[in-house]
């Protein structure tokens, strides 16, 4: 994994934001932290991240998806990981509808929360190798 690539992390939970940032910094990335969608949008105006990790449910149920669309509009080549703990709450099952949902979600990877370090690592390796 090449160093000092920029990763935008958007999370409204301060602890989860810390955790994901820590894991990414350990892996040698430069982390741009944003707590909530508004801060995330601001950061996007300033920089083009090489990768984005977004929480799904922030101010709104689908803040993460909205932000994901904006990233893809601005920077079509930036891969996006969306973190979710909402399967049971929204009734959305990302695993079985993967093909279909992917077309409008636009995120490359959906990861369950809490994020397991090894899963995040594996997902990032795969995305940045592509």
């Amino acid at each position: 994994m090449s160093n000092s690539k920029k990763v935008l992390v958007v999370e409204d939970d301060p602890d989860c934001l810390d955790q994901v940032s820590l894991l990414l910094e350990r892996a040698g990335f430069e982390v741009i932290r944003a707590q909530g969608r508004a801060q995330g949008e601001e950061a996007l105006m300033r920089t083009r991240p090489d990768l984005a990790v977004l929480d799904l449910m922030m101010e709104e149920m689908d803040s993460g998806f909205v932000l994901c669309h904006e990233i893809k509009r601005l920077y079509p080549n930036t891969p996006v990981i969306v973190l979710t703990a909402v399967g049971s709450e929204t009734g959305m099952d990302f695993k079985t509808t993967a093909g279909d949902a992917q077309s409008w979600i636009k995120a490359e990877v959906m990861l369950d929360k809490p994020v397991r370090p090894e899963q995040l690592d594996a997902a990032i390796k795969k995305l940045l190798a592509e």
Partner: protein
Amino acid sequence: MKELLKVLIVDDELGMRLAVERALRNYIVSLNDLDVEVGFTVIQTATGEQALSCVASEHPDIVLLDHKLPGISGIDVLREIQDDNADLLTIMITAYASLGMAIQATKLGAFDFLAKPFTPDELKSALRKASRHFVIQKQARQLAEEKRRIRFQFLTVLAHELKAPLAAIEGYLFILRDRLAGDDPAAYDRIVERSLTRIEGMRKLIFDLLDLTRIESGQKKRELAKIDLAESIQMGIETVLPAANERKIIVTLQTPGSFPLIADRGEIEIIINNLLSNAVKYNRDGGRVDVRVEERGSQLVFSVSDTGIGLTREECARLFGEFVRIKNEKTTHILGSGLGLSIVRRLARLYGGDATVTSKPEVGSTFTVTLERESAPIA
């Protein structure tokens, strides 16, 4: 609101069917207390057999059903249509009203009776009664539906609010397990501290939830007694004092004297503790919390003013809702279940009062609770 009800008249006499249609054509029932105007469209059939297929295809709301029909009888039609359409309002039309028939029809679910011959006014009066029943039934159904929806929404948010701290704690445990926080022991201390804080938040949410459930269900036995509000406030102040001292916040009761009221001590403590702990939590370091009580007619007015971050008008408007937490960079590290103020308001209303807020961003907020001094007799 307007309702258009579909009325099916089943009678083998053409004259009768036309008379009903004519009487109802421009008839409007105004149910002012329910805020509804009801109009009618009339469809008709001459036999019971036709009536059955018409009910199945046209779904009328009200059926005017002649008892004596050439083929299958009105009673048989009634039995079939009420079986399949429990909400259908059937008015039996009968020339020789016999008690036995009336009992049988009622058992089968007939809503009302009209004795032949009847005047247009008698018909309208029966339709008026049926319309009222129809509208009330419909509104009750909508209310039940709305309640189910709100309940589901509540549980959805609750699940999220419980899962968020779990995810945070679990995330920290992964980091601890794999020793990912580097070599500085302080980093691990911080992780443990944050985990404990999130657990505390979760516990608070669960306790608040139990309070809310008890208030909602009315199951908790209330122990009403004469208590002194000033005394409860003093106790509340002592509870928040350690947290206040730590941040050099001064908490005082500004109004001396005693303020008796009849209340459940536990409930009053929930109100006081919620407001006082909020006033400290959302204050600035070195700020003030001023508590005041005054008598106003039959009520006690209890207010808590802080010098904290304050709220915009828009935030004030939704503050007392369930799971409403004002999220911004200033509140992100402040723990809260999002239920406290909704509990305070429910309790205040239980005492014939209310809970309100006035606020100015960056200056502070004043929360005011009114309580009837004698909202309930001592048990």
